[in-house]
Structures are given as C-alpha cells and as structure tokens.
C-alpha cells in the first residue's frame, strides 16, 4: 500500500512537473499578454539587431566635415555679398557695419525740404528720431540714414502718395543703393491686391513696415511695426486702461468685434466668417457693409440686418468691457484694432494668417496675444507691452532703432528677458551690462538679491578748498556703517582737493574723483562704483550711522526705487492747470532728494546714457533740478513712488520755505472730505528771495521735464518706512536702531 501510494505520488509530481515544463512558459506569456498587446500595435518595434546599427556619420566625418580648402571664408563672404541682395538681404550682406564702428550707432535724417509734403505721422517719426539719443546732424558720423521723403502711404490712390520717389532717391548722393537706410511704411499696395509693393526700389534699405507678410519679410533685417493712427501721441502717450487687477478678470463680454465687412476682394473671407459667432450676449460680432462708395451694389442679404445691429453698440464701450477682442485682417494684415485692443487690456485674438507680428524679433507675443488660461496675466501683459513699446510714436520709433542697434553688437545686445520683462527693453540698457543680476529689476524672477554692500558717493562743491566739519562728520558716520564698502568723493569745487593726508582715516577705502562743476556729473556712471547700491550724499548732509544702516536694509527690499531721507512732492495745480512743486511738509511725497538717498547704480547709467544731452544741460542750468529729474526718471521706469525712511532730525534743506501756493489742489489723491490736507509750513527760518528764486527754478524745471516726457511720471506716496519699534514705548535696549528715536 505504502509503495503504491509513493508511486502514485511520484507520478503526480512528475506529471505536474511536465505540465509546468510545457505550459509554464506559455502561462508566463499569457500573464504578460496585455503588455504585449500594446507592443504589438507599435509600428516601430524594438529591433533585435538595433545594437548593431551603424552611426549616421563616422566620428571623423562629424568632427572635421567637408573639404576645408575651398572656398576660403573670405571668398565665400564676398560671393554672398553679390548673391544675397535686395529681396534676400541680411544684415551681413546688405548692411555696412564699418560705418557704425567709429562713432557708434548714430542716426541721420535727411534735411527736410519745404516743398516736400510730409504727413503728420511721418513728421512725428522724424521728430522722434531727432529726439533720440542716437541722432546726429552729421551724415559723416551716421550709421543709419532716414529719408525725408514721406514713404508711409504707398497706396497710389491715396492723397498722400508721393510720386517719383525712385528718381528722387537716386539723386541723393548718400543713397548708395539703400545701404544703411531705414524706410518706414504703413500702407503698401493698393486695390485690389494690396501687395507688399512700395512703388519704388528700396534696394538694400531696411524696411520698417506695418502689416508685414512673413513671406516678403527678410528675417533679421526688416522690422515689422504696428499700424498707428495719425493722432498717435508723439511722446508720453496715454496709459493703458487697466487701472486695477480685477478678480475674477471677468468682464461684461467675452469676445467682441466691431468693424467693416468687406463684401468682395482680399480679406473679405476673414471678416465674413465672423457673424456666426455673434450671440448678442457675451459674444458680440458686429459688421457693417457700409464701406466705399458703391457698397450697395455688392450688398448681400445679411447687410441690412447687420447694419442695424452695428449701430446698437459703441466701439469704445465694447473695448472697455470685453476680455478678448478679435483682431481680424482687413485689406492689409494689420489693423488699428491691434493697438486699440492692447491699450484697452482686451486680449487680442488674431485672425491674420502670415502677419509678421510687430517687433517679433524682440517681443514674445506668445505671452500676450493668444488665449491662455491665465487671463489676469495676459491682461497685465497687454498693458506692459502697450506702455513699453506702443503708446507713443517715440516708443515705436525708438524700439525700431534699438532692435537695429542690438544687431550691430550681438554680444552686447538684450536677451529676451530684457525685452519681455518690466520695465521693457527701452529702459534696460545693454551698454550697462548684459548680466540680469546687475540690473535692479530682475531679482525676483531670478531668485537673487542685490549685493550686500554700498558705495557712499559724496559730492563736494564748497568753495573753501578745505574740509569743513560737517563733511568730516559725515564721512565718519558713513564709514562706520557695517554695509559700507567704499567712499567716493566727487570733488566738484574749483579749488584743488586737499592732499591725501588731510582726509580722515577710515576703515573703508576713500577715493577722491576730480569732477567738473556740473551738477549732472553727480550721476555719471563712474567705473569706481562697484556695488549695486549707491548712497548719494551732499556735503551738508548730516546723518548718523544707524540711519544709514536702516535705510540700506530697506533699500535691499526695494532695489529698484530711490530710498532716502528728505522728501518733497508735486501736486496738480488746478488753477494754473499745470503740475506744481512744493518743498513744504505735506502728508504725501513723490520726490526723495538725492542729497541723501540710496538708489541702484544702474540709474547713473540710465541718467547719463538714456537721457538726451539736452536734459542734462537743463539740469546744469537750473538749481536743484537734478533731484527732480532723477526722481522723474526712476518713476518713469518703475511707475512707483520713492520711499522715505525714518530720519532722526530734519535735514537742513528740508526746512520748508514759505511760498504762496494756491488752495484747492484737487489733484492730490488724498484731498478727500475726511482728511483735508491743506499745505502748511512750519515757521520758516530761511525765508528770503533766494529760496523763492530757487523754487521758481524748480517749477520751471518740472515744467520742462513733464514736457519732455510727455506726461507726469511722478507717483505720490503717503507712507514712510520706520524701524519696527520706532518710537514705541519699550525699553531702548530692545531696539535695533535706538538712535533714530532721539529727538
């Protein structure tokens, strides 16, 4: 019995083993069958012999490609010059870089002739160039030339069409078949095809044109500009319509369009297609057939109804209240609608195939012009772009010039970050640096912070030629700050500076720079300034080490602003209908005097390189104007007010003068019913005609600056930053800046 059972047991085991031997493999395959199923669907299998495949190129071939002997690089470049011309122009073949080497990027405009009619828009463009820091009246120095012939409207049916341009330009001795010329154009071609043809031979000139078609666009050479109306402001420009970030960014309408519908001809297809989306509620699409003289001849069945609907809505109202705006092509690819939508913070939805978007070489349109899930961001982006590049003719023209300038010095040009982040490419100078961390604006995006030390920069103008007590005290106080890296003294007196030994002994290096007696020198970008922060000081200033320390710590939180002590303010003078200036104590401030203030050293570069020489001369001629200009400049860049910090006792110059000022300054934002803030002066000490003249000069200065900028950039603030325990009734031992509390 036992043996039989053993035998049976063995047979059983053996048969199971056999079963696994035959079926196990299959079973395993069966479990992984689902995986294999997907594998089976692949058209691209894993080849069994893929490890045996050869490389696409021999390593030797990759590392030394081709036959190096012919043609020589120089020959090749010379050959390219003759092949790639006119419609195939590129900077390296059609632009003479050597003209820009000696004098840098200088732009010359041809002299205007009286008998040559110039449209309003073109004259604005020419003015913009002449206002630019690149302008030169001397053709010898020039790198870029601009014609005085109005080439904006090249539709020969238009009244502003200039005839015989070809003959005229051929007569210019400087023309040189268009080399290094820049030609502006808004309208090209005419009915019925609206081609890209300008009606004359532009040769090797760079074309800055609106409604550029990608196919005729010479990449890296031409520039697409936006179509702007003839009443587009010369300078300054209106600000965008987004005054607040409303959440949710919902508006009355989702998507709007209101415009002509072409019944026939080019571009009619796009606009014809738009009526389907109209639902009368949140999507509004209105078209009118009334266009041209004989529209009724072409009119279709929809026209009458459409025309009635069209009148029911106001265009401006639609723009203000819609999230998205359709920007369809018209006869030409671009339309006024594009800029209008940008200004209105209405996110443009482009229906314009083949349109080379304005300044696409610099601007990342993906961030602003298409549907994104983050509407709030897109709205803000439209406003940034509008304000940085489009709101005035100046900005459009200067952006065009900067793009060309960037091509000349590739290694010193703006990266896309500089163009597409606040404050925009026009205000971020690559001459200063190409490193983002050197600018005050990009620390947040980069997760970095400005350097931890500052340079004290003291301007001395005293006539004595020796060092007064106040300046010695000031140097001592500043040098004791733990954050001070160095002290620079700008000796702007006519007397020679005292010898080395007369200067106080300080723990930080002290350098004396010989300056001229010009005020604008104080903002020159001296190479000696190595730190991000500059503490600008006047010799008469009296500051303690604690004040300096605290102000610097605050500045590190606001590196793009001016952070300082004595402050003044501007106000809207309703009676005289102009901006007024006051140094009286008020509840607001918009100017922090640079006689004691921290700011980023980049503003020295901006002041000296970005502003035209004319403004610096103005500052040299008027008293105390440099403070206003610096503050206006920084406010124009940041759109934010300066910051005033706690100060132990009032600074000498801040002793207010008693000068009459009109009441009723309705422009001051705070002048509401609950907190009347009439101007007030503490008892004046230094009342006199001198200070009166001072003030009238400052008023004059403000007027001229507002005129140059085209608007009032200054922004008011109602706050002052104090240490956390400032004048609190706690033990002085607890306080980090106890000295600030002392009266």
């Amino acid at each position, binding site marked *: 019995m036992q043996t039989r059972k053993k035998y049976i047991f063995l047979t059983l085991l053996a048969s199971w083993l056999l079963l696994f031997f035959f079926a196990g493999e299959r079973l395993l395959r*069966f479990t992984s069958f689902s995986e294999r199923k997907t594998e089976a669907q692949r058209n691209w299998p894993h080849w069994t012999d893929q490890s045996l495949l050869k490389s696409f190129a021999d390593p030797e*071939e990759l*590392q030394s490609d081709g036959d*190096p002997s012919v043609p020589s690089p120089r020959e090749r470049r010379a050959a390219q010059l003759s092949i790639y011309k006119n419609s195939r122009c590129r900077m390296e073949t059609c632009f003479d870089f050597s003209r820009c080497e000696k004098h840098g990027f200088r732009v010359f405009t041809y002299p205007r002739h009286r008998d040559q009619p110039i449209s309003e828009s073109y004259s604005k463009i020419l003015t913009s160039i002449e206002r630019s820091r690149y302008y030169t009246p001397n053709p010898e120095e020039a790198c870029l030339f601009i014609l005085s012939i109005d080439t904006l409207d090249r539709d020969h049916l238009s009244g502003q069409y200039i005839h015989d341009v070809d003959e005229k330009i051929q007569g210019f001795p400087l023309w040189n078949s268009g080399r290094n010329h820049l030609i502006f154009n808004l309208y090209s071609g005419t009915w019925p095809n609206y081609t890209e043809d300008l009606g004359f031979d532009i040769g090797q000139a760079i074309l800055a044109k609106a409604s550029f078609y990608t196919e005729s666009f010479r990449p890296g050479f031409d520039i697409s500009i936006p179509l702007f109306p003839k009443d587009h402001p010369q300078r300054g420009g209106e600000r965008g319509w987004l005054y607040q970030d409303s959440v949710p960014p919902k508006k009355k309408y989702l998507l709007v369009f209101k415009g002509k519908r072409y019944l026939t001809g080019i571009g009619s297809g796009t606009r014809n297609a738009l009526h389907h989306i109209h639902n009368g509620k949140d999507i509004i699409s209105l078209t009118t057939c009334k266009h041209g003289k004989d529209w009724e001849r072409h009119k279709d069945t929809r026209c009458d109804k459409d025309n009635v609907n069209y009148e029911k809505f106001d265009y401006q109202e639609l723009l203000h209240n819609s999230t998205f705006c359709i920007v369809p092509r018209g006869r030409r690819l671009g339309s006024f609608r594009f800029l209008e939508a940008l200004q209105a913070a209405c996110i443009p939805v482009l229906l314009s*195939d083949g349109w080379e978007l304005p300044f696409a070489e610099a601007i990342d349109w993906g961030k602003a012009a298409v549907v994104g899930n983050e509407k709030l961001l897109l709205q803000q982006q439209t406003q*940034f772009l509008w304000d940085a590049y489009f709101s005035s003719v100046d900005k459009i023209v200067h952006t065009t010039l900067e793009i060309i300038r960037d091509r000349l010095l590739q290694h010193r040009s703006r990266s896309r970050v500089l163009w597409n982040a606040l404050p925009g490419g026009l205000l971020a100078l690559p001459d200063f640096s190409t490193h983002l961390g050197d600018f005050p604006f990009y620390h947040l995006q980069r997760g970095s912070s400005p350097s931890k030390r500052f340079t004290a920069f003291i301007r001395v103008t005293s006539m004595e030629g020796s060092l007064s007590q106040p300046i010695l005290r000031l140097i001592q106080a500043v040098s004791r700050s733990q954050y001070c890296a160095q002290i620079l003294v700008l000796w702007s007196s006519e007397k020679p500076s005292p010898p080395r030994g007369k200067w106080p002994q300080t723990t930080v290096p002290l350098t004396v720079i010989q300056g001229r007696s010009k005020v604008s020198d104080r903002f020159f970008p001296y190479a000696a300034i190595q730190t991000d922060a500059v503490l600008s000081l006047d010799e008469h200033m009296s500051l303690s080490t604690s004040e300096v320390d605290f102000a610097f710590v605050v500045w590190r939180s606001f590196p793009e602003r001016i952070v300082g002590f004595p402050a003044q303010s501007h106000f809207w003078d309703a009676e005289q209908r102009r901006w007024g200036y006051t140094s009286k104590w008020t509840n607001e401030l918009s100017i922090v005097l640079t006689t004691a203030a921290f700011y980023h050293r980049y503003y020295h570069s901006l002041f000296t390189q970005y502003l035209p020489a004319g403004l610096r001369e103005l500052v040299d001629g008027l008293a105390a104007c440099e403070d206003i200009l610096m503050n206006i400049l920084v406010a124009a860049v940041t759109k934010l007010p300066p910051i005033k910090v706690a100060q132990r006792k009032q600074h000498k110059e801040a002793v207010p003068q008693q000068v009459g000022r009109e009441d009723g300054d309705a422009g001051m934002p705070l002048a509401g019913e609950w907190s009347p803030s009439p101007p007030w002066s503490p008892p004046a000490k230094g009342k006199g005609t001198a200070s009166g003249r001072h003030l009238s000069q400052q008023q004059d200065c403000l007027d001229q600056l507002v005129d140059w900028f085209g608007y009032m950039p200054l922004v008011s603030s109602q706050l002052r930053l104090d240490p956390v325990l400032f004048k609190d009734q706690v033990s002085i031992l607890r306080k980090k800046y106890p000295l600030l509390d002392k009266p």
Partner: protein
Amino acid sequence: MCASAKYNTRGPALIPRMKTKHRIYYITLFSIVLLGLIATGIFQFWPHSIESSNDWTIEKRSVHDVPVVKLPADSPIPERGDLSCRMHTCFDVYRCGFNPKNKIKVYIYSLKKYVDEYGTSVSNTISREYNELLTAISDSEFYTDDVNRACLFVPSIDVLNQNALRIKETAQALAQLSRWDRGTNHLLFNMLPGGPPDYNTALDVPRDRALLAGGGFSTWTYRQGYDVSIPVYSPLSAEVDLPERGPGPRRYFILSSQMSLHPEYRSELEALQAENGESVLILDKCTNLSDGVPAVRKRCHRNQVFDYPQVLQESTFCVVLRGARLGQAVLSDVLQAGCVPVIIADSYILPFSEVLDWKRASVVIPEEKMPEMYSILQGVPQRQIEEMQRQARWFWEAYFRSMKAIALATLQIINDRIYPYAAISYEDWNDPPAVKWSSVSNPLFLPLIPPQSQGFTAIVLTYDRVESLFRVITEVSKVPSLSKLLVVWNNQNKNPPEESLWPKIRVPLKVVRTAENKLSNRFFPYDEIETEAVLAIDDDIIMLTSDELQFGYEVWREFPDRLVGYPGRLHLWDHEMNKWKYESEWTNEVSMVLTGAAFYHKYFNYLYTYKMPGDIKNWVDAHMNCEDIAMNFLVANVTGKSVIKVTPRKKFKCPECTAIDGLSLDQTHMVERSECINKFASVFGTMPLKVVEHRADPVLYKDDFPEKLKSFPNIGSL
C-alpha cells in the same frame, strides 16, 4: 539528509488520513492532472489563433528583414522644397483638430527597404541615431499607430546624413509613401545637409511641402516658423561621461578644439594666441598617435596631447567655427563640458532658436570680428560667464544629450505652433531647474496703484459674539474708504440676528451663512466681494482707529500684491531644536502679519481656496488655527515679497478678553503656531517668508507738526 528526515517525520501523519479517504483523493488528483494536461494541450495549439502572429514575428524582426519596395526609374519625384512655405500655407492644421490634451498625433511609417530597378539598395537601411529617434517618438505621448488620426507623419527613411543617400531615389521613395500628399504634414530629420562642393545648408532631397528639422540651416534656407533648426548630434555624448563642473574661472580663457579648420581661420586663431599667450589654446589633429588610439578622442598642441572632449572642461570659452557646413557636432560637446560656446558662423540658425534664448548661453561673433574675439570676450562680466556656463550645460542636458531629447524638443516646438495657447513658456524652455525653483513669477506683476475711489470690502468672520460683532461693524463703518461689509456667519446652529437689530451703516452690509464652521471660510472668494482690496477682520477687533484702518488701506494701495496688516510676527530658526520657531515678542523684525485685521488682494482668496499646496487647507480647518500663517506663506511664496506691517500696533488686545491664566495658554499657543510653521515649510518645500526690519507709518508720524494738519493724526497705540 535533512529533507528526507523531514519527509519521514511528516509521512506517518499523512498516510493514515489517506487511508480513509484515498479513493476520493485519487480521483481528485487524477482529475487535476487530467485538467492540467488538457490545459497544456490547449495552450500548445491555441496560441496561433489568439496571439497575433505579428507579435511574435516582430519580436524576432531584424532591420534587414523588412519588406522590399522596388522603385521604378520613372516613379514620381517631389517638387523641390518650397521656400515660401509657412504653417498657414503648407501645413494642414485641420488634421490635428481639436484635442483636449493639446498634443499632436505623430505617425511613423513602418520600415521598408527601397531598391532601384536593378535591385541595388537606395540607402543604408537605418542608422543607430535615426532608430533611437523613431523609438523615442514611438515611446512618447505624441505617438499614434492610427494613420487616420495622425497629424504629423514621420517617414522611416533615414535622411540624417545626406552623404549616405542617393538623392533622386530617396525622393522617389518619399513620394510613394501612402499619405505623402505633396509632403503635407510630413517631417524629415536631417543633421548633415549638403555635399561637396557647394554644401547647401538644407537637405538637397526634393521634399515639396515637407517640414524639415535640419541641423545647419542658414537664414536663407530656414523657413521661419515652419522648419525647425536642430543640433548636430554628437555620438560622443553617449560614450563619454563628463560630470558637471561647477562654474567659475578655468585654466584657459579661449579654446579651439576643431580639426581641419580652414587655414584662414586657423591663422586668425593663431594670431590671437600669439597676442594673448597661454590663455588661448588652439588644438589640432594629432599626427603622431600610436596605433589603436582613436584619433577623434585626442587633440594636440605642438607635442602636447590632450584628451577630447575632457579638455573642453578646462576652458571658459570654446570656439565653435563653421566648417564646410554651418552646424557642427562640436557644439554639443562644448555644451556638455559646460564651456561657453563662441559661435562664429555667419547666418547660422542656432539649434531650436525658435524657443531657446542663446544669448544666455553663448556668445555669437561675426566672422569679420574674429580678430577682436579676445577683447569682446573680456568684456563679458564674470557673473554672467558663470551663468552662461550653467546655462550651456543645462541646454545640453535638456535638448542635446540624446536623440530622444532632440526628437521630443522638435515635436514640442511643432506642437506649440499648432496649440499656441498651450505652448510652453519662455521660462520653461530656458530656465534651468535651479532657477525655476528659486524664482517667482508674481501673478500681480504690473505696477499699478489701484484708484482710491474703489474702496475696500471688510469681511468679518463671526461665530456668535453678536455684541462684539456689532461694535466692530460700527467701528469699521467709520472708515471713509469702506465700500461694503460682509459678515461671514460661521455658526450653523444659530441664525444671525434679525435684520432690524443690525447697526445701521452707510455702506451695504451682507451676511453670508456658511455650511460648515471652518476657518477657511474667511478666505473664500465670495462673489459679493466687488473690490480688489479685502480687509479681513475678526469680530473682536475694536481697538483699531478709523485713521489706522484708512491708513492701512492707503498703504495697501501702494503695495497691492502684499499682505498689509497691523501686529507683526516673526519666524526664527531654533538652532537647538533644529526647526522653525514662532515669535511674537517685541522683535525688530517682521515676517508675517496677523490676519485678525489685514488688507490684501482678493486674488489671494482664490489662491487660498483653490491653489493652496498640499493638505494645508484641511490641516488648518482641522486644527482651527494658523489660517493666518498659511495665508502669509501663500502670498510670500507666490510673490516673493515681504509683508508690510503698518503703524506701531503690536497686539490685538480687546477689553473683554481678560487675561485668563495667560501664561500657560500663551505657551501652548506658541508651540502650536511653531508647529504650523514647520508643517507649512515642509509642504511648500522651502521657507518663503521674507524678514524685514521696517514698518509703514504716515509720512508725518511723530513729526513736529500740528496734529490737525496731519492726514492720519489718530494712528493708534501699541
């Protein structure tokens, strides 16, 4: 021995049982065996019907074992590439259609072997790199096997290297692809275009409307927005492992490692070396290498031998000069070494230039300016060089390192054009992970000072302290800029008081009842909030003066993207415990404000409710504490900015709250709050709070100035 012993011990116990039930047992056993055998039999014969034969043949397929296609001599040839092609003219976007995932579908033609009339093959079947590329595509989420759903077609005809092709026959092979249709929506990959003597900069194979992903485009052949410029892959990347080297100064300033440079370039480089000495190193092919040493892995300068590509890591800048072609494989090696490429190739379209910002990773110098190279490079700030070194390495890792990286980047670029609203942003393409991690992009980035006229909405969270609530309402209603008051009634068991009992105030008052007594109800983005500014206020905060609140609002207008509050708090690192600690003592620093009374943008209510990371929201509701700390973390994390503390106030002390054994209560409170900070810091993965030493006071605060003329004379006390 051991096993048999076991068997023996078990044996006797087993056998007696079998004795009794042995019949049933045998039957069961035999039936199992029988079933097993039947099953085996089925498996033996069934497979041929259930498993697609395809599967098994594929498994064993070799690239040499593919269908052969004969191309008649007169089969059609596509037109030459159309230079005017753009996406809107030559590409059929309707094939891609609307797609909820916003991903294009890519189809790969199966591999065939093409032969001409005489049976001679047209090209090498497929290269290792092209197989890697197609495998990467087929493994990606772009891939589809359904030719009818595909939007982009990739031929399996390998045209990576034009030299290995018979041009006319390759073109014929393309033309007979099943969906060729003049090349519409077809994508070809080519890295080495052109051939002697002209070396055209784009693939010479006639390809009609097909898109070309090419390495070595010039501005004349590159169809902007249509073609994709890709790198020339360097197989060395796979062979050599160059560990990343920290940025910083290197032994050489400029290095040229290319072999067979044009003598004209070489003499210019040598002139640079003569001028600047040791810091410039010009390498060339080694002439006297012993046998067996691969020439491609060595470079020589005079008699000195260097390892390539390791030597690239010894230099700050590495020259990448054009050869006969514009695109050079050495660019990939240079980037891998973290050396900043100096690209000297006029009119070259850099790889992926549509999305990559090469100014951040390279220096481009015109050929004419080669003699000035040294001074140009000297002008690059040191900090920027370090960033470029990091950026170069990052570009290599993300977009150059493998054929897979190249393939996916190319498809992503095309995808971005077709679904532009889902496109990858500039930052995502260009920022290395470290930068992405530390940078912030503020959702309220535009510097706007909102108009004062809009005012603010006060939100009072209350449970049942009606008397105190009414006092708060009366006090807050005195603030000039208040435009609406919202009471969030958090008590589900009790109805709010009758309408007639509420204080009469000059602005609209709304009561919202909540479904659950949760702290997060205070930060819900109620539709009733119509203003940008929100004042969150507790129902027992009656000590704030009207001036104080109004001033807080004015300060918020100047800092609309921040939390603006009254008492400030601080987080500190406890070195003993090795964790964060909450601090409410009289400190000189502030990193948080209490939301018992604080102004902030309504947008942060959205973020708090819908975008709060991790389980923080539930945690707060469960613990009934720390909602204010969570809000401080959230705002600081998304804006990268500090809070603003206004006015001297340090505590919310209400007359009603008597100090009931303050000390012990205080301590548990502090422990809990510290715990919150540690918890939130771990969820956020970082400590976002920023410490500052300042607070905001009115301009004339404590100045020697008549109080009646100050805007905010009654700014309150501690």
